[in-house]
């Protein structure tokens, strides 16, 4: 066993002289150092193994035999289109025979075509047919039958009858069509209600817009006043208050100071 000093000197990149001095002084380290010298002598006899020309040729041919993982990604994509030249296909296959990750990626993508198409459930056709939207009625009839048009027509008819000097209710009663009378009355009422609703909504909108503008104007005014005050305050020199030199009034604020403090507050 050495005293570990030799190792410490070695790790500290000590000079040969320091190590020799310790070897001379320490018996165990001297034996260890002698063994190390033998190892060093054996190592010094050796040289690097030489690369044969055949091996060099094989190493140079590597790019023609395989591809990198990043290139393999591209080739796998091209191979799916069956557009890969045979040489590239051979390189890709060789690479995949060595690289598990690329082999798995390639097989997974190639397997996409082999996947079976999912069959629809037997009830799916019936459900789709049942949920199909019904055929729309003709547009012209729908327009005439719409509530707005009916109301308008009824209103127009009532106006025409009144202009002709007849009471629509009497006419309706005479004609024996009470239903028409009720319908006309209801239609006139609905039209009136609808008009009132619309007027009310427009009025509310106008009030809201007015309030919004009022708020804007108030806000801007306040901001302008604040800015003006700030500018005025900034332009005034901040002088220290004049205090009397005598000690009689010390600690008592002057009138103008009180006003300034209040204003700032």
């Amino acid at each position: 066993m050495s005293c570990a000093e030799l190792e410490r000197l070695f790790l500290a990149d000590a000079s040969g002289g320091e190590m020799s001095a310790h070897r001379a002084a320490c018996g165990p380290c001297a034996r260890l150092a002698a063994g190390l010298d033998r190892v060093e002598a054996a190592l010094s006899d050796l040289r690097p193994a030489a690369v044969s020309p055949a091996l060099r040729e094989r190493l140079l041919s590597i790019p023609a035999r395989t591809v990198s993982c990043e290139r393999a990604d591209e080739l796998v994509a091209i191979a799916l289109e069956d557009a890969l030249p045979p040489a590239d296909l051979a390189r890709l296959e060789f690479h995949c025979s060595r690289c598990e990750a690329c082999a798995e990626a390639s097989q997974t993508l190639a397997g996409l075509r082999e996947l079976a198409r999912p069959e629809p459930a037997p009830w799916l056709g019936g459900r789709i047919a049942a949920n199909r939207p019904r055929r729309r009625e003709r547009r012209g009839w729908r327009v005439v039958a719409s509530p707005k048009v009916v109301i308008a027509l009824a209103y127009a008819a009532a106006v025409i009858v009144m202009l002709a000097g007849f009471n629509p209710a009497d006419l309706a009663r005479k004609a024996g069509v009470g239903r028409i009378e009720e319908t006309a009355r209801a239609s006139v009422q609905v039209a009136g209600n609808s008009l009132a609703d619309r007027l009310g909504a427009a009025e509310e909108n106008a009030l809201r817009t007015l309030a919004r503008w009022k708020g804007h104007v108030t806000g801007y005014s306040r901001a302008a006043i604040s800015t003006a005050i700030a500018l005025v305050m900034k332009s005034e020199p901040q002088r220290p208050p004049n205090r009397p030199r005598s000690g009689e009034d010390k600690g008592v604020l002057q009138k103008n100071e009180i006003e300034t403090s209040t204003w700032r507050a």
Partner: protein
Amino acid sequence: MNGTDEKALVERCRRGEDEAWRELVDRFGQKIYSVAYHFTLKREDAEELAQEIFLKIFENLHRYDGGFPLVAWIVSLSRNLCIDRYRRRKREKSFRFVSDDAVAPLLKSQDDPASEALKRERAKLLFSALAEIPEDLSEILVLRDLDGLAYEEIARALALPDGTVKSRLFRARAEVARVIRERHESRPGGTLASLALAAGAFV
């Protein structure tokens, strides 16, 4: 070659420039083959391993970001392959027996046959001792003393602090020295024979 040049070389290889790949092979082929040989001690295995390492380099060029020396990146990339081969060799019965053929390609040529035989014996002893010490120590000794990697390169390749690399290297050398000494002492023929051999081999 600095980090920028190495990154540029790798980029050219990625773009498929044959000349760039040739440059990379010529620049690092020798070192990688040496590393492979020191882990396998068999020419065929070393060539196969070196080829495997270069295939891996080519397939992973996009992973090199130029953050540290290219040789360190290559060694880190090939470490698992080397360790696998090393363990495979370790499982074989002839693990501790190092043949003349195994060390012959590593010996500097000698005019004197007696001197050559002596160095061959020392090299065999060295490699058989390396096989007996822990794996984490032997790999650092191989990378530093046999393959000539710098401390920083080894530290990067093995993801270790520089201080740990130096400390392990010292321990590896000390362990090899201990194994060699114990081999001599336990050699049949007595102390005199081992002393004579030791004198012939190491003095």
